[in-house]
């Protein structure tokens, strides 16, 4: 080692587990002992110029929220800190002793974090095999129990050097197993990119202070790799370069913003799978503050209080049993004090006196499963805690937060209470739009209790909102700031994103209705073409029909929300009609399947669009007519669709050349009813006016054999269901006349079904028939 080389023995890397109180204690001890010139922390390097923001005096937990937006796609990620985070201790303690404190990891928008929503997730969680092997060897349920066993429980009594050695051995073992080829290539490369970058900062710190110690606080998983990289650096060659590494800039088309947000234990505990870190923040907060005995006591109190609040009986005997069992478990497992799992296991043994439907959540991986025992749910909730952080008032906030405050003030929206808005008055309608925009941005505390539904025909003109002061409103607003600088722009951005998310037509339609409610009429052309794509790629006739019906209704009638004749909705109508015409012609087969009302409704929606909107929207009515004629004549198409297609042109004012002949050709008894259902759904009035229709049907039914009538009856019944009662009476009258009777049809319609005895007999007969059929295996 030449004299020019920086002395790497001045470098200390504390490899930590994020959010571990034991590791936080180690970091504090190391800073006190070493008095380093530099404290380098695994964290977003682009926040270095703003490191003072962290030291304003927040109430933890807080997080750095980063949003990266590229075109219409955006991605959010968090770097959470709590009182016992080793990174937080490094930051605050380092600053206190006057060290230079810097973050040394890549910014959160960097592609290396593409799959990460939580920067401080456990890296080793991605290499389950390596950790699982260790758990099996030591007879532990999972890595969290293992961690408590190895590190947390006796951290207070073990000398730091020994604890540090234990940690290093643990992480070396896991890293060794991973580097031995068990991790996948892609995962390792993102780790390598980050490690290479962090190593540059460490090298720069070593160069800039050749005489004084440098302390690095990073995930223990990275420590072996960083040490290796530093030892491989050839310092003399690089020595002249004393500058700090550059912080990468995002691509020109990417907008990345980072802000501090108030965070909560609930959210910290809500990460799961690869995103998760240490569970049970409330427990570890107490472990940090009170030590293992105090944490156990206060946690037990908390659980009991929660259970008693839910009127669950928790006797003193139960508490004694829980305590004894917990201590016993700690002894069996070789713990000096009861750890998290010992405590929980003891409580469950004592308090749950029945079979569990789901395994205990702390024995496995992942969150609470449906069916978890309620007492267990309360225990997990007590361990998770409900602490929320608060930012210092001087913390910079994104423009959207200020915009929201101004807008809420301007529209005189109270902080809490029930607000009723009359939508016919323009300023109140604007207030409603603001509230809808906040709702779309998922700002908690703005709940719409009632109001007009754009998808339904509704006559209400007032809207009722329940506004409550939600504790996480501020953090939601800050995070919504990632979507745009004002409430309107952010809502527009988010709605566009939802339309483009390609999660199917229902999502896109929901987003579109939200756009109407938010008063956002000028969705960008990109969104419109995305919506057109989404319609064009959907192949569900029934869903498309529903959307078309609703959108067409809005487009034609909506004065209340100002959506009538809107270009956005017009584009949707046009796209949906074109797509439906294409899809309907492709529907074939299913001759035996009964009529499907939603499919028929889709044909009707197309008809309505052609009837009411073909002029202004330039729909191709001629093509629609031609497609329907082809479907009507296509023997492979289902009967209901053929009937509907036949009624399509008729209802639009083109009477068929020979309706009678077509009805005769419609099909045998098995399909006649279905065919008629389609026809009546579209051209009911026309059929009523054309007397020959009824005559032909009457003739067809009269010529059926008894068996045929039985087969045809249910479908026929469904078909005539399209007529309202008054018209049914007219039809009945005509039938009576056809058969030479003189009565009105009323008697025929009612039959004798108002006689309860007859009705009961009929039912009895029906069920008898059903029983016989079942006995003979004729029905399933």
């Amino acid at each position, binding site marked *: 080692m030449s004299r020019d080389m920086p002395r790497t023995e001045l470098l200390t890397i504390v490899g930590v587990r994020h959010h571990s109180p034991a590791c936080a204690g180690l970091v504090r001890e190391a800073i006190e002992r070493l008095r380093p010139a530099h404290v380098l922390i695994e964290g977003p390097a682009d926040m270095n110029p703003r490191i003072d923001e962290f030291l304003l005096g927040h109430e933890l937990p807080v997080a750095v929220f980063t949003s990266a937006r590229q075109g219409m796609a955006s991605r959010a990620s968090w770097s959470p800190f709590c009182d016992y985070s080793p990174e937080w201790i490094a930051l605050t303690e380092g600053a206190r002793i006057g060290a230079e404190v810097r973050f040394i990891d890549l910014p959160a928008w960097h592609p290396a974090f593409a799959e990460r929503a939580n920067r401080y997730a456990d890296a080793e969680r991605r290499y389950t095999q390596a950790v699982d092997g260790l758990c099996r060897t030591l007879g532990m349920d999972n890595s969290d129990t293992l961690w408590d066993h190895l590190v947390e429980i006796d951290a207070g009594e073990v000398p730091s050097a020994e604890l540090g050695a234990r940690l290093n051995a643990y992480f070396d073992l896991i890293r060794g197993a991973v580097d031995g080829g068990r991790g996948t290539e892609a995962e390792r490369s993102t780790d390598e990119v980050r490690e290479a970058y962090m190593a540059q900062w460490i090298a720069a710190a070593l160069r800039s202070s050749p005489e004084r110690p440098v302390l690095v606080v990073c995930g223990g998983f990275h420590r072996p790799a960083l040490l290796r990289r530093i030892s491989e650096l050839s310092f003399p060659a690089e020595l002249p370069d004393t500058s700090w590494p550059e912080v990468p800039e995002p691509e020109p088309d990417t907008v990345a913003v980072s802000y501090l947000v108030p965070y909560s234990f609930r959210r910290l505990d809500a990460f799961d799978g690869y995103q998760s870190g240490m569970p049970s923040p409330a427990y570890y907060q107490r472990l940090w503050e009170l030590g293992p005995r105090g944490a156990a006591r206060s946690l037990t109190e908390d659980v009991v209080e929660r259970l008693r609040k839910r009127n669950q009986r928790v006797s003193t005997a139960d508490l004694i049993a829980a305590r004894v069992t917990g201590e016993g478990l700690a*002894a*069996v497992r070789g713990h000096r004090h009861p750890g998290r799992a010992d405590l929980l*296991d003891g409580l469950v*043994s004592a308090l749950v006196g*029945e*079979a569990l439907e789901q395994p205990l959540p702390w024995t*496995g991986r992942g969150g609470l499963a449906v069916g978890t025992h309620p007492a267990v749910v309360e225990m997990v909730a007590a361990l998770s805690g409900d602490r929320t952080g608060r930012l210092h008032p001087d913390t910079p906030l994104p423009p959207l937060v200020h915009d929201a405050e101004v807008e809420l003030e301007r529209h005189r929206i109270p902080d809490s209470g029930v607000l009723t808005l009359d939508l016919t008055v323009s300023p109140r309608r604007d207030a409603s739009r603001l509230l809808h925009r906040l709702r779309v941005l998922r700002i908690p505390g703005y709940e719409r209790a009632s109001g007009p539904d754009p998808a339904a025909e509704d006559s209400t003109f007032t809207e009722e909102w329940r506004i409550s002061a939600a504790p996480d409103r501020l953090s939601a607003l800050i995070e919504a700031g990632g979507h745009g600088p004002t409430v309107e722009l952010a809502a527009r951005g988010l709605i566009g994103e939802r339309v483009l998310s390609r999660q199917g037509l229902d999502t896109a339609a929901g987003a579109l209705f939200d756009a109407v409610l938010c008063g956002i009429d000028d969705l960008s052309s990109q969104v419109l073409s995305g919506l057109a794509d989404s319609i064009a790629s959907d192949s569900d006739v029934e869903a498309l029909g529903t959307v078309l019906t609703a959108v067409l209704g809005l487009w034609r009638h909506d004065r209340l929300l100002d959506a009538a004749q809107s270009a956005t909705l017009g584009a949707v109508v046009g796209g949906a009609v074109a797509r439906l015409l294409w899809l309907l012609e492709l529907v074939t087969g299913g001759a035996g399947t009964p009529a499907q009302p939603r499919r028929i409704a889709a044909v009707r929606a197309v008809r309505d669009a052609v009837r009411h909107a073909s002029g202004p929207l330039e729909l191709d009515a001629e093509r629609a007519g031609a497609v329907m004629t082809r479907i009507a004549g296509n023997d492979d198409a289902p009967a209901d669709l053929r009937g509907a297609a036949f009624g399509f042109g008729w209802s639009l004012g083109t009477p068929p050349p020979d309706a009678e002949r077509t009805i005769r050709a419609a099909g045998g008894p098995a399909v006649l009813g279905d065919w008629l259902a389609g026809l009546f759904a579209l051209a009911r009035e026309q059929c009523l006016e054309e007397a020959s229709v009824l005559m032909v049907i009457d003739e067809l039914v009269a010529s059926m054999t008894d068996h045929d009538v039985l087969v045809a009856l249910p479908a026929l019944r469904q078909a005539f269901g399209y007529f309202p009662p008054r018209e049914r009476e007219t039809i009945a009258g005509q039938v009576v006349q056809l058969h030479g009777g003189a009565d009105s049809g009323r008697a025929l319609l009612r039959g004798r079904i108002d006689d309860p005895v007859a009705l009961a007999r009929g039912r009895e007969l029906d069920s008898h028939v059903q029983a016989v059929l079942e006995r003979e295996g004729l029905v399933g």
Partner: protein
Amino acid sequence: MTNDVAEKRVQRPAAEVRYAGELARLRATDDGERPPGWALSLRAARRFILGDEAAGISRKFVGDASLIDRALVSLATSRGLMLVGEPGTAKSLLSELLAAAVSGDSTLTIQGGAATTEDQIKYSWNYALLVAEGPSTRSLVPAPLLRGMAEGRVVRFEEITRCPLEVQDCLLSPLSDRVLAIPELSGEDALVFAREGFNVIATANTRDRGVNEMSAALKRRFNFETVFAIPDFATELALVEQEAAQLLTGSGVAVPPRRDVLEVLVTAFRELREGRTERGDSMERLSSVMSTAEAVSVAHAVGLRGWFLRGDAGSASDIVACLAGTAAKDNADDLARLRTYLEQHAGRRKGAHWKEFYDSRHLLPG
């Protein structure tokens, strides 16, 4: 004792006989604190059940390690241990292992059933002696509970919820006051006080007549531990393979079961048990029990069919033939569900065995 058993060709010796060597080794090296009346320390008992490769102790129970911890600690306290769970989750095996570890004896067993009486639990009489001499300790025939209390051993009570409620309740005072009264005797003999080391391990099945059938008073005297089906595919497969191989060797089959065939079997069992396929399709769960134990017995039957009918290791079509008897039993609905599973889900899988499995669906009866 081991030799006796070997000579008598016992089908299934008790756990303390099967693992006599391991227990002796553990006792010899056991330096932990033993709860009063226990044959092993808690940690040694844990190693006996969960295994310790370095010391040559085999793993006998596949499941959460923490379950064993809780069970052992419960046994060391003043409450009994109640193992509940679906049938076939190795509750009885676990209770046998626990008793063998704690008392060195797993034979004090009461088998619960509709016809179980207090006599079979506490004590009965040698009626010839009773008539000749009157009640005395000579004419008394102790049943497992009395023996367990007098000798300070663990008593196993299998399927406790299948016993009538009033019979179950005769456990109340032995569990809470740790004393059993024999009113027919007088003086010192009239009360049997439990020696240290006595406790009760009960098992109950959540499928037939649930644990709700227990009185609240009795429930309070037990710590409940739920035993779950094996959550992890690889572990379950390994277990089925190991157990089936052992059974097949015992039945004189010379070839081990094929792993790829067992994969089909275990996957099908898990999917039918959970009502969800690997790719996430939901389907109807079978109402009969699709436990690991059942999977082992199907694997055994598959191996027997293959070997004795054709001389091979058994194939996927044998699974179908055996499934009808296990999975569907006499339930027509389950048979229909099984057929749907074969038709809709098995057909989609890739691989020769899945294809064979699918192609043999006609082997299902009906």
